[in-house]
């Protein structure tokens, strides 16, 4: 079967995904309407799920969709419900916050680009979709053997978040009553 047509479709799909992700990310940052921001974030995260699909792991893509779009974005919606009413005029962004945000993202950007440049990339042999290296089983194995420490540190972070949430909620309730 002629594969050049298929390759063209794959290439086109890749660049469409890139465009969607970048568009979503800019919608998440620039508009002053907080609901647009959340929907933009959801779009960007869906685009990232598309990249995982392109890299050959349907499982990771589905988890990305389930956790980041389904859980994180909805959690952010919860935060919006508890914030100021949407029809009230938003105050201008304080310069200090903007600068700190730019600083944090520049540090992260330099780190990410540095890692990307330092890595010796290898062209995957054969078709991308046949990469069964990232099946559910091998990811589970890797998480509990090679990446055990990372896994445990992440659970520690979640534990800290839960305790923080409980304490914050408990304190504010005691203060108001």
């Amino acid at each position, binding site marked *: 079967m002629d594969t050049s047509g298929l390759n063209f479709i794959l290439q086109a799909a890749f660049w469409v995904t890139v465009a969607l992700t970048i568009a979503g990310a800019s919608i998440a940052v620039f508009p002053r309407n907080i*609901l647009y921001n959340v929907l933009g974030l*959801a779009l960007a995260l869906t685009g990232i799920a598309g990249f995982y699909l392109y890299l050959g792991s349907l499982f990771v893509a*589905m988890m990305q969709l389930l956790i980041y*779009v389904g859980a994180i974005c909805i959690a952010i*919606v919860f935060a919006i419900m508890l914030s100021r009413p*949407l029809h009230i005029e938003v105050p201008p962004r304080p310069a200090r916050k903007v600068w700190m945000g730019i600083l944090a993202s520049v540090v992260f950007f330099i780190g990410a680009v540095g890692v990307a440049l330092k890595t010796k990339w290898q062209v995957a042999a054969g078709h991308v979709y046949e990469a069964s290296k990232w099946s559910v089983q091998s990811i589970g194995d890797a998480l509990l053997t090679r990446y055990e420490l990372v896994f445990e540190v992440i659970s520690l972070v979640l534990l800290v978040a839960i305790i923080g949430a409980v304490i914050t909620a408990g304190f504010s309730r005691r203060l108001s009553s």
Partner: protein
Amino acid sequence: MSEGFWGSEWFRLILGLVIVLAFSQLNALFLVWLERKVSGHIQLRPGPMEVGPHGLLQTIADGVKLIGKELILPLQADKKLFFLAPVLVFTPVLVGFLVLPFGPGLVIHDMNVGVLLVFAFSTITVLAILTGGWASNNKYALLGAVRSVAQNVAYEIPLLLAVMSVVLMVHSLSFSQIVESQKTVWFIFIQPLAALIYLIAATAETNRAPFDIPEAESELVAGFHTEYSGMGFGLFFLAEYTNMFIVCAVATSLFLGGWNGLFGISLGIPGVCWFLLKTYFLIFVIMWVRWTFPRVRFDQLMNFSWKVMIPLSLANLVITAIVVKII
């Protein structure tokens, strides 16, 4: 697979999508009619009778009327998001059909993470409802959307936990393998608690009574789709009924043995018929529940999920894991 386009996976996908589009419309037409008939008979009246035999063509007439109606855009609404929401609400529904196993080998695209796919995309429905409710710029719509978000977060957790206990037993996320392993005994007999939790949570996920607080008509007019008219409303309606079919089909595959007959006895009935029979029976049960039970209050709804369903489903999952390891 090698005879060019007609035998390729692409052709299979396109054909599948066309069939799904046609089927979801027909199914929704039938379900709306069934819903009105069931509610009618439960309330001791015949339901629609005029158009066609036993009112069978009533929904087609209603559908044509809906298509002919004007799409009204509220003055203060957010135009882009207002029209995006009904489209967005229908996408996850179509994706769900991709992996449903209607019969042995009769699945559009059998994936090894099929179960995840259905639930990953079902979360987009909540975002669509939120978008629609917020973009309408209407108090009732916004309240309905906010309620829908809270309800879906609360009920998604027990739903997934109940599904996970089945996945743990089969060691697979593929629908075909899950159905295959129920050849002799359906999982509802091994996992009755998970099945019950799934059915309750699925009713809540599809915003059906007694969990229909996002669109509670006696409090919120019509909830998140108050401002939608014509096919804008029609798409929400269609998505709700198609969603109902999907959750019932998933329940059939996970707990009622999919295309398998009871205890391995198929009685010569083809697998597709078994599958559809069980799915429509579950849909009938959900309708029956809707017209029998009153709507729950919001705090009851939240308490029931967080304090009863989640602990029960967690315990069920832990016990399943232990038993699976020991045996």
